[in-house]
C-alpha cells in the first residue's frame, strides 16, 4: 500500500505531470475567471459547477480513480519489460555513427541557447505530433479502439479522467514516449554533444510547463474554455477536446491533437468550438456493457479485441480460398 501511494502521490508534486498541484490551481483560477467574465455566472454558481458532485463522485469519476490506482500497480509490474528510452537512444546514437561514418560536430557554429531552444522545441513538436497520430490510430483501428474506448466511456470529465486508460494503451503511450525521447536526445546529442540541454521551468520543459499552466486540466473538466477561431487552428482549446469526447455524430473522430490543433488542421480532423449547450460525453450506442465496472474497464476491451482479431484471422483463409477458386 505504501509503495502504491508512493508511486502516484509524487505526481501531485512533480511539475512534469499534468496533475501537479500548481497546474490544478492554475486551471481552477482560469475556470473561475472564464465562468465569471465570459459566461457571466456568479461566483457561487461557478463554484457549484466546478465542484459539482456529479463531476467528482459520480460512478464515472469513481471509475477514473480506480483505474488510476490499479494502473499504477500494473505499470510497476510491466515497466521493466517496456522498451526503454535509453535503449532507443543508444541504438539511434550508434546508427548515426554508421550513417555519417563518424561524428561530424556542428556544435561550434551555433550558440548554446539556440541549440537548447531547438532541442526543447523539436522535442515538444515531435512529441505532440506522435501523440496526434497514435491517438488517431487508437480511434481508427478497430482493435485499438477496443482499448481506447475505456477512456471515452467516461460520462463526466474531471482532471483525473486523464488516467482513465487501459493498460494496453499505457504500454503504447510508453513506447511512443520512449521512441520520441530516445530519438530526439540521440540525434541532438550526436550533433551537438554536451551543448544540448532542455530548457526548463521547475524541472519541466518550458513548453510542457506553459501548456499545463495555461489550463491543460480543463481538457477534462466541466468548464468549456474556448479560444478565438484563429488560435484554435493552432492550439487545442479545452472546448475542442470536449468536442472530441462528445457523443454527437458530427463530433466523432475529431480533434485528436493534444497541445496543438495544427495537426488536425493539416490532416483534416479539426473541429472548432461553438458556443453551444452542454455536450454529452461517453460512448454512443454502446450501452450493453457497464464501462464503469472493473470488468468493463479491464476485461471487456480484451474480449472485443480478441473477437475482432479472430474475425480478421478467419477472413484470411477465406480470401485465399476465393483467390484459388477464381
Amino acid at each position, binding site marked *: 500500500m505504501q509503495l502504491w501511494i508512493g508511486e502516484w502521490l509524487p505526481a501531485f508534486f512533480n511539475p512534469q505531470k499534468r496533475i501537479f498541484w500548481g497546474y490544478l490551481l492554475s486551471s481552477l483560477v482560469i475556470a473561475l475567471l472564464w465562468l465569471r467574465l465570459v459566461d457571466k455566472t456568479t461566483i457561487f454558481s461557478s463554484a457549484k459547477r466546478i465542484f459539482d458532485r456529479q463531476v467528482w463522485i459520480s460512478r464515472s469519476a469513481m471509475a477514473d480513480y480506480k483505474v488510476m490506482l490499479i494502473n499504477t500497480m500494473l505499470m510497476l509490474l510491466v515497466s521493466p519489460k517496456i522498451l526503454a*528510452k535509453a535503449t532507443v537512444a543508444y541504438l539511434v*546514437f550508434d546508427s548515426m*555513427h554508421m550513417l555519417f561514418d*563518424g561524428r561530424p560536430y556542428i556544435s561550434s557554429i551555433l550558440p548554446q541557447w539556440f541549440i537548447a531552444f531547438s532541442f526543447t522545441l523539436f522535442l515538444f513538436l515531435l512529441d505532440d505530433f506522435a501523440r496526434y497520430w497514435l491517438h488517431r490510430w487508437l480511434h481508427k483501428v478497430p482493435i485499438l479502439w477496443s482499448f481506447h474506448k475505456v477512456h471515452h466511456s467516461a460520462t463526466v470529465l474531471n482532471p483525473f479522467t486523464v488516467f482513465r486508460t487501459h493498460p494496453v494503451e*499505457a504500454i503504447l503511450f510508453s513506447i511512443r514516449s520512449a521512441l520520441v525521447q530516445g530519438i530526439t*536526445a540521440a540525434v541532438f546529442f550526436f550533433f551537438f554533444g554536451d551543448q544540448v540541454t532542455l530548457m*526548463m521551468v521547475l524541472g519541466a520543459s518550458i513548453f510542457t510547463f506553459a501548456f499545463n499552466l495555461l489550463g491543460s486540466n480543463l481538457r477534462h473538466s466541466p468548464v468549456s474554455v474556448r479560444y478565438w477561431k484563429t488560435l484554435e487552428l493552432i492550439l487545442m482549446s479545452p472546448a475542442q477536446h470536449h468536442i472530441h469526447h462528445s457523443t454527437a455524430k458530427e463530433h466523432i473522430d475529431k480533434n485528436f491533437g493534444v497541445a496543438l490543433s495544427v495537426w488536425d488542421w493539416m490532416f483534416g480532423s479539426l473541429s472548432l468550438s461553438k458556443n453551444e449547450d452542454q455536450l454529452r460525453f461517453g460512448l454512443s450506442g454502446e450501452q450493453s456493457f457497464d464501462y464503469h465496472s472493473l470488468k468493463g474497464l479491464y476485461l471487456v476491451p480484451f474480449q472485443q479485441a480478441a473477437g475482432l482479431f479472430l474475425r480478421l484471422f478467419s477472413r484470411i483463409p477465406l480470401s485465399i480460398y476465393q483467390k484459388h477458386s477464381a
Partner: protein
Amino acid sequence: MKKSLMRPTLTIVILIATSLIFGCVFAKPEMYSSFPVTEKSYSGSKKDSTSYTGQMARHVLHNSLKKLAGKGNGKPNSALKAKMLSYYSGKDAGREIIDPTSKGDFKIKQTMVDQISKGKNLKGKTYKGIINGFPGQMTGPEVFEFMIDKASSAKKGFDPLTGYNYPQLISKFMMGAVFYSQAVDNYLDEKLAVDNKPNNKPYKKGKHYTGKEHVWDEAFGYFGAPAHAMALSAKQAYGIAKKKDMKVADANGDGAVDLYTEMTFAHAYYAADSDKTGTKYMHTIVGAFIKGRQLITDANGAALTDQQRAKLMGYAKTIKTNWAKVIAEAAFKYAGSCYKDLEKLRTIVESNGDASKAFAAYGKHWGELKGFLMALETSGRDLGEAGVRMNRLVGFGPVLLGGGQVTGIDSNGNLQTGGNRSMGEYQVHMIKLQKLLGDTFDLKARKNDVTSNMAGLLETLGSSLAAEND
C-alpha cells in the same frame, strides 16, 4: 537521577568523550608495515615479518622495461632487444633502475634493482595461458617476447603500419599478466588453501615469516601501493607516481623515496586515478590488505581456524573484485580516449591536415586499452561471453586510416593487416565496449564516458512511462 550516581556517570561520559576525541585526532593511520614476527621456529633477531621486496623489484623491472620499449630507432636493434630481455627474463646482477629515477627534488633511494631484491625477473611470474585478445594464439610469455622483439626495432616503440604502441601494450598487459594474475590467481586464490603455505610453518625453512603472512605480503606488493597509502588522498598517491609530491611520498622523512615502501606503482596508480573522481578503490583494496594481514598476525603463528580463513577469504574477495574494477575502469577510460581520437582524426583527414601526431596519440591510447583488456583475461576467472565480446569489439589492432586492422601473424612472425572497417563503425565499437565494461564490472568512475551526458539528458526528460491519456 540520584545525586550519588551523577558524578560517576558524568566522569565516565567525559572519559569516553575524551578518548574518542583523542582517538580521532591522534589516531595513527593504518600502514602496511611493522607486523611483528609470529613464526615460532624463528630464532633470529628480526622483529618485522613484513616482506614483499621481490614484488617491488618486479615493479621496478616493469617500469624500466617500459622505458626501454620506447628507445628503438626504427631499425632492428639486437643490443636493445637483449637489454629488454634482461629485464624481462634475465636474473642477472647489476641491472640499473631505468625508471623510476630521481627528478629534481624528488630523490629516489635506490638506483639498482638489486638494492630492492636480487635475482628477480618477470617471465617466471607471467601468466602461462593462451591470450585470446592477441593474434597468434600465444601464451603470456610468448606475447611478451614477441612484443619485445617488435619494440626493439620500432621507432620510439611505435609501429605506424599497425598502430601498435609497444611500451603501452607491454606495460598495461604486464601489470595484468604478472602482478594482477599472480596476486588474484595465485596468492589470493590457491595459496590461501588450508594446506598451502600454512600459518603454523615458515614460508621457507629458516624464514622469519609464516606461510600465510608472506603469501598475503606478496599479494599486497603486487598491487603497487605505498605502505602509507591509507594516509594519502587519491591525488597524493597519484602525484607520487608522477614524482610530484616528495613531501607526502617520503613517509619516514629520510630525504629519499624508498621504492620498496614509499612509491606508487602499477594498478595502485590507476586506482588512485579513478579515485580522483570519487571512487574509493585504493583505500578499499589497501584497507582489506591491512585487515587481512592483521588477522594473520593475530593468529600468532598458529594455523588459521576455519573461521579466520573464511574471514581472510572475504578480504581476498574484496581485493579481487575491486582490483578487477580498477583495470576495467582504466580500459573504460581509454575506450573513451580512442573514441575522441577517432573524432579528431576524422576532422584532420577531412581538412587534409597532418594526422601523424593524432594517429600516434590514438595508437598510444589503443595500446593502453588493449593492454588493460588483455590483463582482464589473466585473472583465472573466465569472463565468458563478455570476454569474447570485448575482444571482438576491439579486434587485434586499432582501425587504421585506410580501414585496415591487424588480422593475424604470418609464418614469418610478421603482423598482417587487412579488412575494411570504417572509423565510424569502430567508434560504435568503443561505445559498446564502454557499455559492456560498465555493466560487467559495475563501474563507477567511468572516465571519458562517451554517452554519459546523453544519459543525463534523457534523465532531464522525465520518465517515459505514461499511463496518461490524451
